[in-house]
């Protein structure tokens, strides 16, 4: 049956069943021919309740946990989609870049990975470097973007080739999120053009980025090959840091 185009009703808690039954389709308002003296015996059905806005579902496992089928994300307002993705980016950022108790366990650290966050951070870094440059702006953006994007893929392949165990896109996502400190550093360096300040800021943010990426990369490979997997990460961040300092 074709549902009317309206925001879906919020999923209500039900007793978990093995086969998830669809909720009853919203019924049209029943005609109320009763006279005024008799109050309606039952509360009006769900369709006449003003539909509240759909919950931002940040966990796609809602359907699997016995709450009924997942809310229909095709008909939700665009702002809800954007808000959901933004909240996921923020939560992933907090997991990766800031201290939290899950850092040592790569399985838990970035369970809900996404690629929007890394995309924003890489493009932002390229744009910042390009704005800071006085000549060859487009070439600077191309070098920065190519270095970071290709670098993330090559670093992941490096770990896989060394016999490590990581998930390809999870690793891309993590390396992208670890660029956030360098983004902040590039922004500061663009606003204030003093060499000493730039060197200090880049060193601090470089150390922060490396600290963020270290536990994930080092736990993915054999301990005897840890340095082989970590050195290219360090090389990429140092080269980006040098670009930030050197762009005039």
């Amino acid at each position, binding site marked *: 049956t074709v549902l009317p185009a309206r925001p879906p009703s919020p999923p209500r808690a039900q007793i978990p069943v093995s086969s998830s039954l669809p909720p009853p389709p919203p019924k049209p308002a029943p005609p109320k021919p009763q006279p005024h003296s008799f109050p309606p015996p039952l509360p009006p059905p769900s369709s006449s309740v003003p539909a509240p806005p759909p919950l931002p579902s940040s966990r796609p496992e809602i359907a699997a946990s016995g709450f009924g089928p997942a809310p229909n994300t095709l008909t939700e307002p665009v702002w809800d989609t954007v808000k959901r993705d933004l909240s996921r980016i923020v939560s992933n950022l907090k997991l990766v870049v800031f201290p939290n108790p899950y850092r040592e366990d*790569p*399985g838990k650290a970035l369970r809900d990975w996404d690629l929007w966050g890394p995309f924003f951070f890489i493009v932002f870094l390229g744009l910042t470097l390009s704005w800071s*440059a006085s*000549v*060859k702006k487009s*070439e*600077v953006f191309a*070098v920065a973007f190519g270095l970071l994007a290709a670098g993330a893929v090559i670093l992941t*392949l490096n770990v*896989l*080739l*060394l*016999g*490590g*165990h*990581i*998930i*390809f*896109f999870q690793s891309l996502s993590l390396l992208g999120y670890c660029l956030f400190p360098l983004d902040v550093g590039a922004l500061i360096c663009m606003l204030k053009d003093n060499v000493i300040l730039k060197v200090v800021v880049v060193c601090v943010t470089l150390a922060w980025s490396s600290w963020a990426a270290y536990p994930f990369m080092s*736990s*993915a*490979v*054999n*301990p*005897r*090959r*840890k*340095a*082989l997997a970590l*050195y*290219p990460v360090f*090389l990429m961040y*140092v*080269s980006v840091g*040098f670009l930030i300092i*050197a*762009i*005039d």
Partner: protein
Amino acid sequence: MDDSYTGLPTSHLLGSVPAATNDANNTAKQEASDANMQTFPPNQAGDRGRGYHTLDNPPETFEEQPANNWRGVFSVSSYTQYFNVDTDVVIFRLISSFNPYGGDFFSKIDANPDLYGLIWISTTLVFVLAALGNLATYLMQKHTGTSTSWSFDVGYMNVAACAIYGYAIVVPLAYYFFLQYMGSNASLIRFWCMWGYSLSIFIISSFLLLIPVEALRWLIIILTGVASASFVALNLKSCIEGNELSVAIVAAFFLQIALAVFIKVWFFA
């Protein structure tokens, strides 16, 4: 292998490489007799015991496969045999590449040549040349007093990447084909490995080339060029036999010197 990282249940996740357990290692050793590193492209014997069963490749038909097919080209796990090195092995090979008189590099890498050195040494060299080349140009200009403003030329990165990657990939390839044509048996992976490690001495000399004295710069680059070139030439000589191929050895020597001179002239002028 430690339990700490093989315990991750990742085999059901897209793009992951399943853990190689001990019994898989034993079977892989018996079946990998055809996976010798003389052949490139790698055949798919490398991942036979690891749980990748493609639909058209049931394990029992393994024996009929020729040793040099292209089936494993797009699978990452068939290239892991070229990266089967530990940190201490890589450091040992790196240090032995600084010694120009050894001539025994091929015997050191014989059992287990690796491409890790080639890829990351050349990448490091590209970055170091681009970064230090800019810095050295600025220092030289400041020293001779012509101009004191710092300008960063991003074009250095392009030229460095093309030159170093081109040299490191094309020259061993050319030697491999030439020696195959001449009839002597050569191994492409070992050539790539040796030429890759021969570039490592240029990384150190790039730091020394920052000194803005022209005569000193030429002295440094000549010394490093000769050291690196003699490393390449002596190892080539130990690898190939026959007097009629000594032209190739001399050519390798001069190619390495030409690379050194190019580095000096373009990046550290």
